[in-house]
């Protein structure tokens, strides 16, 4: 038994982050990755000859700046091809509103402008408070350590420190839906549609679903580039982040074995003893840290028999129904989005013309059907980073919602083609000529994302981000502080606190918990 040896399962960005911190904490770390490249869902893929896109997530807006600094990601090659991108809300006509650092521009009312200021002030304040607690292990609510109790007390104190008005506002809006809140601040349907989409991207929620304020705050609580909520594109696509993390990890002494999948986590006397690879090879270790989602980790890799029935039932009930499909298009020239000037195409484009539209897009997902009029977040990364496409040509990367993982009809080729047609038709309402420019394309449904990235349900948070699966109860009671019931086994992926997105935060906190706990 090699006590100081840790195996990290999965070289996703959280796995790499965790591995790097653990190695710096003095452990002997091996990362085992099933696919032949690192990055997991933070990858860049060439989906057509010479055309490359970020395979899953495509914008950076939550990357933990402590991770960037402490691991020296910039020294290890992290670069952005664009920073501080604005959001342009598209309507089926040519009406456009830009939501940027300077506020709103476009056809909006005075109430929209002042509402935006107040809304931004308030949500950034709440997100700021939240971010402190998203950046540390969540305390246990009872039977906790002194540290847990102190954290809780400080949380209470921090909420009080918001002052009476803001505190009341936080307690009021914290658990409700973004739909009602945006109606209190804004007139413009386009603005409300675009902001509400931020609240529901990647979730099984519509703007009217209570909890969607929380998801909005979560998004905002990450470290934007360069300010909260601001978007950036990594050079070379999301794989650029993975590459920097890989270098940082290797520099710290991490060994990365890719192309070898873990078949199971081995247990001896209720303690992990290592992993067994699918080819039968056994790797011994004192600790195993899994960046796979909780369901995969517990049910597939560990095996239910090593845990208690109630715990297994909780893991089984963890909701992780992915709803976001990914559309990648290779274009033979710059696309034309009427109303958006050519230089502005580098910004993020949102198609969610109003909140009711977004809510209607969500409705079918509840019944296992895809939206016939979907909402989209569109990126044209080659506008900022020409290396992603052959000269003069472009790539389009879009998140298209809603495409439920458990499609009643099943995601066969016919259904995929039909949904692709829907997505392209929707795209054509804001970029009429785009179909003629497509030279290649692909659509990844949540089922594809599950298969490709080994994420249960293809859910990018590895588990729905809603209050009943958040913070004190994430992913499930009994595993909220990264340790699983079997000694020596930890979670470090998006399923753990605080959640998904390209953050590195779960990986970082998990490593801290392990190092501070002096485990092994």
């Amino acid at each position: 038994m090699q006590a100081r040896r840790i195996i990290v399962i999965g070289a996703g960005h959280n796995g790499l982050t965790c591995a790097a911190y653990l190695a710096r904490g003095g452990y002997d770390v091996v990362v085992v990755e099933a696919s032949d490249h690192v990055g997991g869902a933070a990858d860049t893929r060439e989906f057509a000859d010479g055309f490359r896109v970020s395979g899953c997530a495509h914008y950076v807006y939550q990357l933990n700046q402590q991770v960037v600094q402490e691991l020296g990601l910039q020294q290890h090659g992290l670069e952005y091809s664009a920073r501080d991108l604005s959001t342009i809300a598209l309507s089926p006509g040519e009406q456009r509103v830009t939501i940027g650092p300077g506020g709103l521009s476009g056809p909006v009312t005075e109430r929209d402008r002042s509402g935006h200021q107040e809304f931004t002030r308030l949500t950034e304040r709440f997100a700021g408070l939240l971010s402190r607690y998203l950046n540390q292990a969540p305390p246990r609510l009872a039977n906790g350590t002194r540290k847990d109790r102190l954290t809780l007390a400080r949380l209470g104190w921090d909420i009080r420190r918001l002052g009476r008005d803001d505190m009341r506002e936080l307690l009021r809006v914290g658990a409700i839906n973004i739909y009602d809140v945006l109606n209190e601040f804004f007139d413009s349907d386009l603005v409300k549609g675009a902001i509400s989409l931020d609240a529901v991207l990647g979730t099984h929620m519509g703007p009217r679903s209570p909890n969607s304020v929380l998801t909005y705050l979560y998004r905002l609580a990450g470290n934007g580039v360069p300010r909260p909520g601001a978007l950036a594109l990594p050079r070379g696509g999301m794989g650029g982040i993975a590459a920097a993390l890989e270098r940082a990890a290797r520099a710290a002494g991490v060994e990365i074995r890719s192309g070898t999948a873990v078949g199971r986590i081995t247990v001896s006397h209720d303690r992990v003893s290592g992993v067994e690879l699918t080819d039968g090879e056994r790797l011994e270790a004192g600790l195993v840290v899994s960046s796979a989602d909780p369901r995969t980790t517990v049910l597939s890799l560990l095996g239910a028999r090593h845990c208690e029935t109630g715990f297994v039932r909780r893991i089984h009930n963890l909701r992780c129904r992915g709803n976001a499909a990914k559309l990648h298009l290779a274009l033979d020239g710059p696309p034309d989005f009427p109303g958006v000037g050519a230089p502005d195409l580098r910004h993020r484009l949102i198609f969610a013309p109003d909140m009711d539209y977004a809510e209607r897009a969500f409705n079918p997902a509840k019944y296992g059907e895809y939206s016939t009029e979907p909402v989209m977040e569109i990126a044209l990364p080659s506008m900022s980073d020409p290396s992603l496409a052959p000269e003069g040509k472009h790539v389009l990367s879009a998140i298209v919602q809603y495409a439920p993982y458990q499609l009643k009809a099943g995601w066969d080729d016919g259904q995929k083609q039909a949904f692709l047609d829907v997505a392209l038709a929707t795209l054509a309402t804001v970029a009429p000529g785009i179909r003629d420019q497509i030279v290649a394309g692909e659509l990844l449904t949540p089922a594809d994302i599950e298969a490709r990235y080994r994420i249960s349900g293809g859910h990018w948070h590895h588990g729905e981000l809603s209050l009943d699966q958040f913070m004190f109860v994430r992913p499930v009671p009994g595993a909220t502080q990264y340790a699983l019931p079997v000694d020596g086994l930890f979670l470090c992926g998006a399923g753990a606190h605080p959640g998904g997105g390209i953050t590195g935060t779960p990986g970082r906190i998990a490593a801290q918990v392990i190092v501070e706990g002096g485990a092994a």
Partner: protein
Amino acid sequence: MSVAGKPVSERVLRTAFYSRTSEANLLNKWHSWRGYTTADAYYDASIEYFACRNATGVFDLCPMTKYRITGPDALAYLDRLVTRDMTRIKPGRVAYAVWCNDAGKVIDDGTIFHLSQGEYRLCAYGRHLAWLLAATLGFDVSVEEETDEIAALAVQGPTSCAILKDMGLDGIENLKPFGLTHFDHGQLMVSRTGFTGDLGYELWVERRFAENLWDRLFEAGRLRGIRAMGGDALDMARIEAGFLQAEVDFLPADQVVRPGRARSPYELGLGWLVDLEKANFNGRRALAREKAEGSSVWQMVKLVIEGNKPADASYIYAGTRKQVGFVTSAMWSPVAKQNIALATVKAPYGNNESNLHAEIYYQRELHWSRVMARCEVVDKPFWDPPRRRATPPADY
């Protein structure tokens, strides 16, 4: 399942032996056990009780919940489910076991019959299909309820073995306690188990064979004092044997509402059923902690109480002032000639150094009196005759 026009929910449920039990029930004393019409007593509870202590009493236990557990992982599944080491229970053996929730609190107790390799029957007082199915996650095993399909009789008492022999069950005398065997080409299963703490057997058949079984049994037992026995008599016998009754002496952990009302096996005096050395099982981590820290909050104790006033629902005191617990089952034991009780007391008061007293209220011609009666904590069952274990049993 809609039979004869009315769905099962709006019909009275009858056990497979109802045609026989209804004929036998001179007192017309019944209660609803899980909806089934079952006898409290047939002619006189104390005579029925003495039948099982002196000759043979027959109890209809059809309403006991029964599950059939099969599949390649059946053993692994059960071993993870219960606190006992099930790998030691070979085919043809029966295990009394408890199963716990994650927190190490008892959900229920019951008997597990290892019918053949990979095939088990679990028999319990409560209904647990939801939990048993949740526990199948990750195991290649199937769990099916067969309560209504399987009829069962408990045949308990000193002459029970002889009666079964007379019934033609050759070699039954060689069946050891907690053994099981089959007769009639497998149609009849007999296990040497029971809830009376005496020599006794339980007979298991498919529902369609039930009435025939009853008739054969009573015919065979005619000369050996066989009698039908109701719930009242069985309850007396089980208290003497020191057996716990779910929903009386403890509550299923997944159904308690108030904090602290569930019990661990240690707190129920069933620590001997917990094997912390075997592979992981539900509640193991919590139980290991409880054992290591000595953090049991309660103790289940068997009490012999001075005097002859039954201590039903009595408070238990350490000394005569400090209230430390309460009685869950109590009776005057006709066979032991003792005033006995099962009680739950706060740890660590469950010992004779605590000088326990029971606060007993009793009524004589409408007037209530109160006594504080000294209690002695005993380890052994109140009634535990050697014949219970003798193989072969003496031929009465």
